[in-house]
């Protein structure tokens, strides 16, 4: 009988209840809240639900996930060495239509302007006391590209990965709430009613040459993001080539889903209490909102510039789509434009800055890596 009690005692001693810190408990609650946001509220469920579940698993003590080989170590390897973001970008590329951008290359400028949010946020972060690499990683939230944000953060400030990933994906899903008021603030009703000319047809030739040419140019200029841009454009080549549909399908589906699971569960695993439960996390979340708002505003304001220079042919609403968050931001432009003028169809026009924003964020990340360099180097 005594042996029985001793044994039961030993099971308890080896359990995770023993060794559960208050930090773990709070992180479990954070995980539950994130799960509620992801599944209950529909905030980027594909990513956030896994991040949240990973957060739960990562805060169970004594699992050995961080020191013993196993499936979680395999996943963490892929996180810590940026294996997954380029593979996600391959699938994103296979889903991206650069047609509207090729039809109207001027909208590239809107995608550039909206990256201003990244640097507003970077400046803010440094003023609030974050160091340069942390500030760069926080700023990239404003780029509204999950894989790029994760890629840069792992290189620059891996201890912030959880907070930045959560902020980035949360705000990306909140784009339909964050953007409209800012957009109406930066435009007049007359602006919003502007109808744009229909886009020219883009040939298959252009669609095939563009990903190749842009890969070479951007990779040469910014080698640190060659993996990201290269995979994005390779995926797009699968989509456009016409003879690579098998690979396009796999890049968008089987491979992307597998990598999404690993990326997001692994990101959640890194959310340890001592890294996440700091007042900096709250600052990051606030700065992320500033970044999104600033990006939206700068996009719209640059849209105003383009409206004037084009003689009133450009609806400034499409500027807000430059933050990327593809395709949600473009849909927001469409919805806000249609509210002002029910016969207004801005979707395809907004897709140009929208996909330009993806490239712009990768360029911004590459520039920061080139100027600042990865951590520990």
């Amino acid at each position: 009988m005594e042996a029985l009690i001793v044994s039961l005692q030993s099971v308890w001693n080896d359990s995770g209840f023993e060794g559960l810190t208050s930090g773990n408990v709070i992180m479990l609650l954070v995980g539950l809240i994130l799960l509620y946001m992801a599944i209950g509220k529909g905030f980027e469920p594909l990513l956030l639900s896994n991040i949240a579940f990973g957060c739960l698993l990562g805060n169970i003590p004594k699992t050995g996930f961080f020191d013993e080989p196993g499936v979680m170590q395999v996943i963490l390897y892929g996180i810590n060495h940026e294996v997954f973001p380029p593979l996600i970008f391959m699938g994103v590329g296979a889903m991206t239509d650069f047609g509207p951008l090729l039809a109207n290359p001027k909208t590239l400028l809107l995608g550039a302007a909206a990256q201003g949010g990244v640097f507003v946020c970077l400046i803010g972060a440094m003023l609030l006391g974050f160091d340069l690499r942390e500030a760069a990683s926080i700023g990239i939230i404003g780029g509204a590209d999950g894989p790029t944000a994760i890629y840069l953060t792992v290189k620059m400030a891996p201890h912030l990965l959880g907070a930045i990933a959560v902020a980035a994906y949360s705000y990306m899903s909140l784009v339909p709430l964050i953007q409209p008021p800012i957009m109406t603030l930066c435009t007049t009703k007359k602006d919003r009613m502007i109808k744009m000319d229909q886009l020219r047809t883009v040939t298959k030739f252009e669609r095939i040459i563009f990903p190749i040419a842009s890969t070479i140019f951007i990779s040469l200029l910014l080698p640190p993001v060659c993996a990201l841009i290269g995979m994005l454009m390779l995926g797009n080549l699968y989509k456009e080539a016409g003879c690579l549909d098998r690979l396009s399908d796999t890049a968008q589906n089987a491979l992307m889903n597998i990598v999404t699971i690993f990326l997001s569960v692994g990101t959640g695993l890194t959310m340890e209490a001592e890294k996440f439960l700091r007042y900096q996390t709250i600052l990051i979340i606030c700065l992320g909102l500033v970044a999104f708002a600033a990006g939206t505003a700068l996009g719209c304001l640059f849209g105003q510039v383009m409206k004037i220079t084009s003689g009133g042919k450009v609806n400034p609403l499409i500027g807000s789509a430059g933050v990327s968050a593809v395709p949600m931001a473009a849909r927001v432009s469409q919805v806000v434009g249609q509210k002002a003028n029910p016969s207004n169809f801005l979707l395809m026009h907004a897709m140009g800055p929208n996909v330009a924003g993806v490239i712009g964020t990768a360029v911004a990340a590459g520039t920061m890596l080139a100027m600042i360099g990865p951590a520990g180097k």
Partner: protein
Amino acid sequence: MGPVTNNPFLIAIINMIVVFGVLIVLGVLMHLIEMVDPTKKKAAPKAAAPVAAAPAAVAAAPVVEDKSEEIAAVIAAAVAACGGSENVVAVRIAAPATSWAVGARAEAQTVQPFC
């Protein structure tokens, strides 16, 4: 650290206690979940259908899937109306997997849900 005991009977007993204990706690959890369920309603009338349908599902091969039933019905009706009914053993509707793929492709023009 070696094992606590080598007595197989003791190990068996402790293990069964833990297994029963854990599953009983899970049962309590289930009751708690049911109790706090904010979506709980008088769902009884709905419940009848699936259970009643179960035997049929066991007996016959699943021919028609969930949401696609209408479509299948329409096609079957069309086929029947045209007088070719006997051969309709199984109208397989493109699986949900397929429809995601369709959706993905439909959205792909303008959509990157992951980005």
